[in-house]
């Protein structure tokens, strides 16, 4: 049943619109990325732009920033009409984009990364180090964050890079700030600081377009919301007319129930599938003990830098650690990825782009990569068999792809994540570790991934999920462990806790930045 959209309220009387897009149309080959999208944003307005992966959000942003040229349509910026705008024109008009991939220069220092675009706009020809440092310092101060100005950006953590990207957007006289998922790598405290900055910017009359998959965020910062679906704008309204469920509905075009996972222990099972005792890794985590049974989904959460990723990797044979690890009651030594593989452990990494996928290779190559030894007949591979295996995974995991032979880089985040998942499922693991399985994945796909994981657990796999997203942990996992500074500080059944209580546990005593 099609749910009627709440009637659009007339927008309050306001000043001149800073940016207006009229009937913007853009195609990539056969894909209609933007289908006659019209959109306008005025001074001081905060828009949230939502939509599933591949709905056209990024394309729209790139049209606004001048990186892409629209096939047809008109752009009115400060009352002036443009058929096409160059990145320089957009920047000079006061449009700043904080890209999802940060767009930082890994080889330059923090200060240069932040200050350079400011200097570009001012058409500076020469470089003054003091000025660069001053600009960078001022921008970081606005964020209330300290970073070493002369540190090379390649040596920062992901969160540090994100901060640099945001600070760069704030380093000039900005009229429209577009943030493409700016909070994916930030800790709770940094996100709160960002919200405060957004409030200040709003008060200064700066228009903000905020792209996010996190529904909570949308409600805390934006006044209006626009939703794209398959390249069309399906909604443009005041946020107060919606709640989380109705937004999800408009984004995906379907109702998505959120049912917590119910863990039913296997009858007569006494030995856990995984038992960890006193596991330590110097500089990462200390004295970690826990167990995991089949059919169980165990969540691990904690701030960035708390040791959760190192712990996951340790179970997958990466890093030097000591302590006892038992699989189904047998003590094992996991010293390499090969060991883990042989013992039936699968690991879906945090950063699928750099650790999980061969982006330029086909989906089939990706999905069969971990199981090549099993699929081989002697020393030969049967190409047709690999393709058949891959097609069956595309079906089973409902991956939207034209076929198993397209490169992995063509897929959206949610589908890419399912390819990584398929790669490990193909090895028929007994224990599966998922590190932030839904980062940068839209609501619809996220839910589908959750359903896949729950189904795997019901079928008897033991699953560990590491995530920042407390909402995800509570619906997906039957039990949660919280890590802090490399130690396990709390274990609780998710049925006995709430999202709010867990969030408090995670951020308590959060002084001092970590992981930068």
């Amino acid at each position, binding site marked *: 049943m099609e749910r009627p959209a709440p009637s659009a309220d007339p927008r309050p009387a306001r000043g001149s619109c800073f940016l207006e897009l009229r009937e913007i149309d853009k195609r990539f080959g056969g894909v209609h990325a933007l289908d006659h999208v019209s959109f306008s944003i005025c001074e001081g307005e905060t828009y949230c732009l939502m939509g599933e992966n591949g709905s056209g959000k990024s394309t729209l942003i790139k049209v606004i920033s001048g990186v892409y040229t629209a096939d047809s349509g008109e752009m009115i910026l400060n009352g002036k009409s443009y058929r096409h705008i160059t990145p*320089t024109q957009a920047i000079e008009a006061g449009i700043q984009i904080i890209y999802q991939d940060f767009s*930082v220069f*890994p080889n*330059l220092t923090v200060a240069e990364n932040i200050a350079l675009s400011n200097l*570009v706009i001012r058409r500076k*020809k020469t470089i003054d180090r003091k000025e660069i440092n001053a600009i960078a310092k001022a921008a970081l101060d606005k964020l209330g964050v300290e970073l070493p100005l002369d540190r090379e950006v390649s040596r920062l953590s992901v969160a540090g890079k994100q901060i640099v990207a945001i600070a*760069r957007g704030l380093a000039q006289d900005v009229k429209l700030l577009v943030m493409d998922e700016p909070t994916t790598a930030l800790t709770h405290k940094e996100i709160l600081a960002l919200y405060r900055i957004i409030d200040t910017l709003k008060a200064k009359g700066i228009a903000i377009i905020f792209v996010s998959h996190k529904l909570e965020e949308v409600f805390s910062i934006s006044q209006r919301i626009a939703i794209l679906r398959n390249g069309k704008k399906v909604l443009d309204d005041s946020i107060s007319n919606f709640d989380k469920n109705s937004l999800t509905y408009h984004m995906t075009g379907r109702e998505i129930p959120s049912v917590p996972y119910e863990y039913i222990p296997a009858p007569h099972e006494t030995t856990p599938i995984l038992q960890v005792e006193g596991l330590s890794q110097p*500089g990462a985590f200390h004295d970690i003990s826990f167990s995991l049974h089949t059919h169980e989904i165990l969540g691990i959460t904690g701030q960035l830098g708390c040791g959760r990723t190192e712990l996951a990797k340790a179970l997958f044979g990466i890093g030097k650690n000591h302590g006892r690890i038992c699989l189904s009651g047998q003590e094992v030594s996991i010293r390499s990825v090969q060991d883990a593989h042989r013992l039936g452990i699968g690991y879906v990494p945090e950063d699928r782009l750099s650790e999980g996928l061969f982006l330029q290779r086909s989906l089939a190559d990706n999905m069969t990569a971990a199981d090549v030894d099993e699929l081989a007949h002697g020393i030969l591979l049967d190409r047709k068999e690999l393709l058949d295996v891959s097609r069956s995974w595309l079906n089973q995991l409902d991956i939207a792809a034209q076929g198993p032979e397209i490169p992995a880089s063509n897929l959206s985040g949610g589908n890419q994540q399912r390819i990584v998942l398929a790669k490990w499922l193909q090895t028929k693991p007994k224990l599966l570790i998922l590190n932030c399985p839904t980062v940068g994945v839209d609501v619809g796909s996220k839910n589908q991934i959750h359903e896949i994981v729950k189904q795997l657990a019901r079928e008897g796999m033991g699953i560990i999920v590491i995530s920042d997203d407390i909402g995800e942990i509570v619906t997906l996992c039957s039990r949660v462990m919280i890590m802090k500074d490399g130690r396990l500080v709390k274990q609780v059944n998710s049925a006995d806790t709430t999202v709010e209580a867990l969030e408090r546990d995670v951020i308590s005593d959060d002084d001092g930045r970590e992981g930068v």
Partner: protein
Amino acid sequence: MNLRKIVKSNEFFLFAVIALMCIVFGLVSPSFFTVKNLFDVLKSMTETGILAMGSLVVMISGGIDLSFMAIAVFAMHTVSRLFGLYWNSAPMAVLLLCGMIIGLLLGLFNSIFIAKFNLPPFITTLGTSNIIKGFLLAFIGSKQFNKIPAAMIAFSKNNLLTISTDEGNANLHIGVLIFFAIAAATSLLLNKTMLGRSIYCIGGSPSSSERIGFRNLRILMFVYAFAGAIAGSVGIMHASFQRMSNPFDLVGGELNVIAAVVLGGPRVGGGYGNVTGTLLGVLLITLINNSLVMLKIPTFWQSAATGLIIILGTVAQMYRYKHSVNAEKGA
């Protein structure tokens, strides 16, 4: 920059290796630590050193230029022949300028393919290098040319400073001054101008560079034109040093220059490198070549020694990079 950082830097490492080599050579050959040898080494560095500045800029931008020797030879032979035959009395400045303009145009020719059509620089410059060589031999001449303009001959004898020593006269050639001036200008360009920083930006991330408003096309055109112009000037100087123009000279020397630049710190892929490191790299390569001659070691060993130094230098760079990253992580 604090002391620890300096000690860990690539430049310090090169400096230490050079110092060590000097000590060894000094112990073996008494004529090593003499003013005459110093001046000779400086003069030997001139051509490689100037060419290295062009290569450095290209490598920072994330590319590589294999055509600069072909450009240098082309500029050398064209200018030598044309001026030698038709305007023998042209002043050196005009000759240098013409060489640089020819080089600049050939560099722009490279950049059309690389910047405009996004062809890989390695393949493009390998191709253009052959085109340029072919053109040169077909249309300009394939024979050694001896009647080079008078100003070139005069330039080869133009010394800034002559000191008489026990080993004979030690001459500091004016080419050394040009070399230092170009190195200083390159350093200024890279560090003190937006254009220079934009070259590092392209090397670090071309898409990010475009996004903050740099015009990658123009910047890359500049980069290859700069490398071309520099190669052109070296061509003129080379003919002058040799007092003749041989179209088969220089060719094959590309790798020596690239090796010197690579030793100085740029990483394949771009974004890194500086003039100081490159100068040290050039000095190291020149010292090896010169000193092995002085020690009467056969030339084929020079080639082997250069190759060995390149590999050892790169290994040391990688090792120290990994080490420093680990040290920071542990901190």
